[in-house]
C-alpha cells in the first residue's frame, strides 16, 4: 500500500463525491417539493429511484450510442 495507490484512491473518492453532488442536484430538483421537518417516505423513495433511474438512462444512452457507432462503422 504505497503513495501512488493512496493518491489514486483519493482521486477516485473525489470523483465519487463529485458524482454524488451531481446526482443530489438533479434528484433534489426532481423529488423535493417543500423541505419539511423530515424527509417523508414519498420523497425518500423518489430520491432512491431517481438515482437508479438516472443511472439506467445513462447506461441505456451509452449502450445505444455504442451500437449506433458500430452500425455506422460497418
Amino acid at each position, binding site marked *: 500500500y504505497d503513495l501512488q495507490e493512496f493518491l489514486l484512491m483519493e482521486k477516485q473518492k473525489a470523483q465519487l463525491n463529485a458524482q454524488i453532488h451531481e446526482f443530489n442536484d*438533479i434528484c433534489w430538483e*426532481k423529488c423535493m417539493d417543500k423541505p419539511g421537518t423530515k424527509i417523508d417516505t414519498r420523497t425518500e423513495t423518489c430520491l432512491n429511484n*431517481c438515482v437508479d433511474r*438516472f443511472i439506467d*438512462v445513462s447506461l*441505456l*444512452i451509452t449502450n445505444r*450510442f455504442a451500437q449506433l457507432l458500430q452500425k455506422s462503422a460497418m
Partner: protein
Amino acid sequence: QVKQQIAVANAQELLTKMTEKCFKKCIIKPGTSLDSSEQKCVAMCMDRYMDAWNLVSKAYSNRLQRERHRM
C-alpha cells in the same frame, strides 16, 4: 492521437448532455424501474438530440461561411 482525444471528448460531452436532457424530459416521476414507455421516450429523445446537434452544427457552419464572405 490529439484528434482522437477531441473526438472522445466530443462524444463524452454529447452523452452527458443527452443523459441530462432526456432524463429531464422522459422520467417525470422516477419509479422502481424504467418502464417501456420511458425507454421508448429516452431512445426517441436521444435520436432527436443528435438530429438537433447535426442541424445546429450545419446552421452554425453556414453562418460562419456567410460572415466570412461579408468580410
